[in-house]
């Protein structure tokens, strides 16, 4: 179960504070060795990403990762992070952006981030993605049991 929040012109800290208030939860934030934040009281898992003026936050009952990116093409990066099969799938900026957010959401789900090595993420072997297009952005969420929470 997950819930996605999207806000414009806010910070990660402000959005998390708003969600905690909405859920009537008070908790300190703790970080793993790679900097992934968690609620100390384990009320839920969460993950945050931002791109340009948008910040997204997902909450879930299980580990989760999220990434948002404005649609863009970076040719150099394709060679660095994609295997040959993944490269064949990238024919447009939209394809590249979807690939990027998938890989980022997965390493953020793992709680390791870029240190994992995005080239080590084979998106063709991973099935638990939710991909959403939002205005000129793509959002990827990776986690288990990703049924949407009721509002």
């Amino acid at each position: 179960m997950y819930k996605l929040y999207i806000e414009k012109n806010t910070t990660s800290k402000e959005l998390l504070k708003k969600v905690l208030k909405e859920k009537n939860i008070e908790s300190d934030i703790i970080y793993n060795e790679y900097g992934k934040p968690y609620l100390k009281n384990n009320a839920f898992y969460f993950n945050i990403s931002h791109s340009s003026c948008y910040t997204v936050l997902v909450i879930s009952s299980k580990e989760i990762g999220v990434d948002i990116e404005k649609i863009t093409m970076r040719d150099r990066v394709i060679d660095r992070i994609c295997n040959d099969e993944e490269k064949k799938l990238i024919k447009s900026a939209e394809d590249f952006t979807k690939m990027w957010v998938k890989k980022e959401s997965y390493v953020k789900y793992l709680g390791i981030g870029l240190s994992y090595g995005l080239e080590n993420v084979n998106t063709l072997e991973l099935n638990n993605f939710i991909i959403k297009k939002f205005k000129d952005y793509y959002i990827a969420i990776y986690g288990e049991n990703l049924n949407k929470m009721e509002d």
Partner: protein
Amino acid sequence: MEKEIIDLISKTLEIPSKDITLKTNLISDLELESLDLVDLITAFEKKYNIEILDKDIKNFQTVNDIVQYIKSKNV
């Protein structure tokens, strides 16, 4: 080498080079996101024919950190 690196950051990320010094913070000053950082280090790899591991990216706080890293690769 410092100027060369600043010029490459400027060209890669389309930021005026006058806005970049050795003390410039990549995140708080230039507001770079993960994709920008990966794009940037890939540009450095190609220019200097070196390998920069993703796990080293988190150590790059300022432009000077990049300069020192590249110098440490005996470029």
